[in-house]
C-alpha cells in the first residue's frame, strides 16, 4: 500500500484564542478524489491552507507528499496544484501573459493541454484579467492549475462561481485528468451533486473536526434513513442506537442513522413490533442529517 498523499494527525489550528481546527485526522490515499464539505465557517479553507503550508499549524502533524508542508521542497511543489476560493491574479496582465508567466515556473507544463483547456472554457488569450468576471477568473485559475498535470490538485470551492455549463466542463476535465493518470484531488464544495459525480471519498468537517471520512460508497451504505411503523404508539423515551436524528409521532418514526447494520434493523423490528423500511440518502441529505442539531 502506498503512503497517503496527505496525512494529518491531531491537527489543531487556532487564531488567537479562537480554535478553528481541532483534532483533525485524515489520510488521503493516492488517486483519491476527496470532497470536503462542511457548513460555512466550519474550517474548510483553513484546513486546506494548513495542508498547503499557507497557514502554520498550532499543534499536531501534517504531511504532504511525505514532507512538512510549511517547508515543502520545490520538487513537491511542482507536483501540487491549487485554486483558491477567491482567485487573485495580476489584473494588468492578459490571459496569454499570465499563462506564459505561470508556465515559466513549471518544467512539466503542457502547452497543448493548456491551449485545449483555454479553448474548452472559451477564454480569449487577449482578455485582460482586470476585465474578467469571477467565473472567468475561476476558469483561468483552473487552467493554470491543471496545465502541468499536478499529482495533487487542491481546490477550494472551485465551482462556486461557475455556471452549470462550465461546471460540467470542469468536472469532465477533472475526470479526464483522474482517469488517465493517477491524480489525487481534494476539493471543498457546497454542491453535493458535483461531489457525487466525481468524488471517491467524502470528508465532512463540522465545527473544526472531521466527523466523517470514508469512501463515498461506504458512506452511502452506512448512512440511511429508517421509516418505522410500530404496532403501538411509541413512548416518549423512544430512541434508536446511533441515531443522527429522529422524529416520531404516535406509532410512526423517521430515524437517520450514521452506521446502519442488519442487526439494528432486526433489533427495532423485534423491540417495537414494527415494520422498518430502509431508505437510501443522497449526499445532500446525508450532509443535512449529519448537521442536524
Amino acid at each position: 500500500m502506498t503512503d497517503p498523499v496527505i496525512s494529518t494527525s491531531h491537527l489543531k489550528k487556532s487564531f488567537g484564542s479562537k480554535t478553528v481546527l481541532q483534532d483533525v485526522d485524515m489520510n488521503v490515499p493516492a488517486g483519491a478524489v476527496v470532497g470536503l464539505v462542511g457548513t460555512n465557517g466550519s474550517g474548510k479553507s483553513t484546513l486546506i491552507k494548513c495542508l498547503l503550508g499557507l497557514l502554520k499549524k498550532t499543534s499536531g502533524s501534517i504531511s504532504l507528499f511525505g514532507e512538512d508542508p510549511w517547508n515543502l521542497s520545490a520538487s513537491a511543489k511542482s507536483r501540487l496544484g491549487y485554486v483558491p476560493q477567491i482567485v487573485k491574479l495580476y489584473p494588468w496582465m492578459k490571459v496569454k501573459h499570465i499563462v506564459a508567466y505561470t508556465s515559466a515556473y513549471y518544467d512539466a507544463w503542457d502547452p497543448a493541454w493548456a491551449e485545449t483547456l483555454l479553448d474548452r472554457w472559451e477564454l480569449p488569450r487577449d482578455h485582460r484579467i482586470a476585465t474578467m468576471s469571477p467565473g472567468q477568473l475561476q476558469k483561468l485559475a483552473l487552467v493554470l492549475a491543471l496545465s502541468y498535470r499536478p499529482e495533487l490538485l487542491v481546490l477550494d470551492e472551485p465551482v462556486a462561481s461557475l455556471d452549470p455549463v462550465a461546471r460540467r466542463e470542469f468536472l469532465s476535465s477533472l475526470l479526464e485528468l483522474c482517469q488517465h493518470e493517477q491524480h489525487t484531488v481534494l476539493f471543498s464544495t457546497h454542491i453535493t451533486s458535483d461531489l457525487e459525480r466525481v468524488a471517491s471519498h467524502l470528508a465532512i468537517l463540522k465545527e473544526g473536526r472531521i466527523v466523517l471520512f470514508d469512501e463515498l460508497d461506504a458512506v452511502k451504505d452506512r448512512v440511511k434513513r429508517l421509516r418505522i411503523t410500530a404496532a403501538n404508539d411509541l413512548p416518549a423515551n423512544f430512541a434508536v442506537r446511533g441515531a443522527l436524528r429522529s422524529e416520531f409521532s404516535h406509532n410512526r418514526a423517521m430515524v437517520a442513522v450514521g452506521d446502519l447494520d442488519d442487526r439494528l434493523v432486526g433489533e427495532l423490528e423485534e423491540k417495537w413490533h414494527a415494520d422498518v423500511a430502509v431508505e437510501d440518502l443522497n449526499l445532500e441529505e446525508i450532509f443535512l442529517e449529519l448537521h442536524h442539531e
Partner: protein
Amino acid sequence: MNNRIAKVAVIRRPSRLGAVWLSYRTRWLMWILAAGVGCILFGLVWSFWTDFRRSKVIPYPGARALTSAEPSAPSPIPSVSVVNRDVQKIDWAHLKSLTVTDVTLCKPLMEKGAIPQLESLTIFGAITDQQLAELCTLHNLRSLTLYDGNSLTEKGLHAWKGQSRLEYLRVLGLTVAHTSPSLDWPPNVQTLICDDTRGVVVQRLDEWRQLPKLTTLSTRLIPGENGMPDETLDSLKGFPVLQRLFVQELGPYYPHLVSDLQSALPNLRVRPNSFDPVVGQRAATILICGLLAMIVMAVQLSSQFVTTASLLMPQFARSHLMPVIAVILLMGGLSFGLDLFVGCSVVASTGLCLAFVLILALGARCIRYLTSLNVVPMPGFNSPQVVLAIVFPPMILQFLLNSCGSEVDWFLRGERPWFSLVLLVASIWGAVDLFRWHIGLKRELEESDAGNVPLGMFDLGGWTNYWRKGQFALQAGEGKRAPYALRWMDSKNDRFIERLQGGNPITTLQLWRIGCVASSRDWLQATTLVIVAIWIAAAFLVPDTLSQFKQMPAFTGFQTLAMGLLLPLAFAFQRRPMQEIELLRPVTRRDWVTTWFYGVAFEILPVLVVGLVFGEIMLWSGTLGIWTVTDALLATVIFLGILSVVFSFGMWALTLNSLWKIALAGFLGYCALLSCLITPPGLQFQKIEWWHTPTIMVPLIGGLYLTAGVGYWIARRSWMNWEVGRSA
C-alpha cells in the same frame, strides 16, 4: 430556550447620525490621523505657551525673506563661511560666495586676485575705507552685504562708484548717510537696502533716483505730522525702474504708513521692511493640522460613498453631510484661532483654511480622472485627492514662506481682501462640489473605473472589493484602445515573458519583477519629469522665486528619492494578495523569501544609483559648500545605511497583518527616511557643523548599520514565518 434568547444582548438601534458616527469611530485609520491632528495641535499650543512672547521681528527684507527682494542675487556656488570652517581647506581660486566675521581674519580677501571668482560677500564686522577700496577690486562681485558700515566715510564710498557689476547692496549702520548731503553708490545696483537716512531722506532718495537699474529699495522714511511729506513722495515717484519699496513700520505712531504709501504710490509694491516669520510658520502649522482633519474626512467619505449602500439607503448622503459641515466649521474655528493666537486677518485665514477643500475638490475632479481612466493603473493609490492634499499643500506652504514671505505676510494681514474673498467663495464651491462628487462616486466606480481600489493601500478589505469589481472595470471601455500605460506594459510583457524560464536566480528575479505593476525606474523617470515640469512652470509663473529655486533641487531631489525608495515597497505591498499562489510555485520557502528580498533590493537599486549620482553632483557642484573626498565618502556611507534601514523595516512591514503593526513598521521606515536630514548634505543644508566630529559620527553610523542589521534579521524571520494564507 427563551432564557438563551434573553441573555443575548439586543443590538441597539442608533439614530441616523449616531450610525454615521459609529462608522467613523470604528475606523482605525481615522483614529491614527486624528492622533496626528492632536499631536500637531498639542505642539502648537505648547509652542504658543513657551515661545509666543519670544517671537522676534527680523529685518525684512532680510534672511529668508530676502529672496523676494532679490530677483537676481548672484549664485552662492560654491560658498563658504569662515566663521566655522577651517580656512586652510578653502579653494580660494574657485570660491564664489564668502561670509566673514572680520575682514582682517581673512587674508586672501585683501590680497589682489586671490579670490578672482567671488560673486557674493557678506561681512559682519566693521570695515574701513581702505578695506572697502580693496573689496571693490573684486571684479566679479555682484552681491555685497555689510553689517557694520559705521567706519566708512564719504570719501571711502567713492570706491564703489567704480564697482559696475554690483547688483545687490545691503549696508547697515552707515552713519555717514545720516548727515552727508552727497554720497556715491554703485551705479548698476538693482537692490539696495539702506536704512540710514535720518534727516536727509530726500537727498538720499534723490541720489538713489539716479541709479538707472534700481528695482528694489528698502529704507527708512520719516513721516511728518500730516503723513508723508510731498517732497518725499515726489522723490519716490521719480524713480525710473523702481518696482518694490520696503519701509519701516511705526506701530501706534503711524499704523497705516505702509498702506498710505501704497495708496500714494500705486505703481510700486510697498511692503513693511520687517515682519515676524513665526506668524507664517504658525499659520502653516495650523493649516496643516486642518488639512489632516480634511484628509480624515475625505478618506472616511470615500469609504462610505464607495459602498452600494450610498445609492440604496434612504437619506444616506444627507446623513453624511454632517461630518463635512463639522470639518468646515473646524476650519472656520481654526481661522479664528489664527486671528486670536497668530494675529492673522480672519478673512484671509478663513480663505486659506478652506482652500484645502478646494484642493481636495480639484484633486477629485482632475487628478482622479487620470487614474480612473487608467492612464496609469495604480491600485492602492486611488485616493489621489488625498495624496494630492498630503503631498502638495505643505510643499506649497513651505515654498511660499521661503520664497515670497513678504506676500504671505501681506496676505495674512488681510491686505488682499479681494483675493481672500475669491478664495473663500471658490473654497465653498469646492466643498459643495466635493460632496456632490462623493454622492456620485459609487455610480462612477461601477460604470467606469471599478477596477481601481478606492480605499488606499492600507485598507486590506478594499482588495476583496477590488477583485470582485474587476469584471466591471473596463467594460465601459471595451472596444476602446487601452490606455498608453497598459499598452506599454503589454508590449513589455509580450517581449519578455515568453522567453523567460525560472530556474536560475537571474530569470527568477526577472519573473518576479513581471509581477510588479511598474518598476521603480519607470516611476523615477515619471516623477522626475513631473518635478522638472513643476519647477519650470513655477519659474515662469513666479519669477521672483527664481533665486530660491536654485536652492530647491537638493530638497526636491531628496523628495523624489524618498518617493522612489518607498514605491518598490508599495508595489510589493500590492502583491500581497497573490502570495498564496506565488508561495506554491516550485520554490522552497527560503528561496521564495530570498527572491523577494533580492527583488525589492533590485527595484531599489535605481534609486540608489540615482541617489548617489545626484548626491555627488550636489556635492561637487558646490551647492552644499566645499566638500572633500572624506566628506563625500561619509555621506555615501550614511546614505547606504539609511537605505538599508528603510529596506529592512519596509520588508518587515510587508508581512504584517494588523494595521497597527503595519503602521509601526511604516513609521520606523519613515523615521529612517527622515533621518536623511542627518546625512552630511542634510546637515550642511541646515548649516549644522557638528557632524565633522568623529565622536558623534562614528556612533551614529554604527547605530545606523546596527539598526539595519537588526531590522533585516526581524524582517527575514518575519518572512520565514509569514502565514500568507492570512493575508490573502
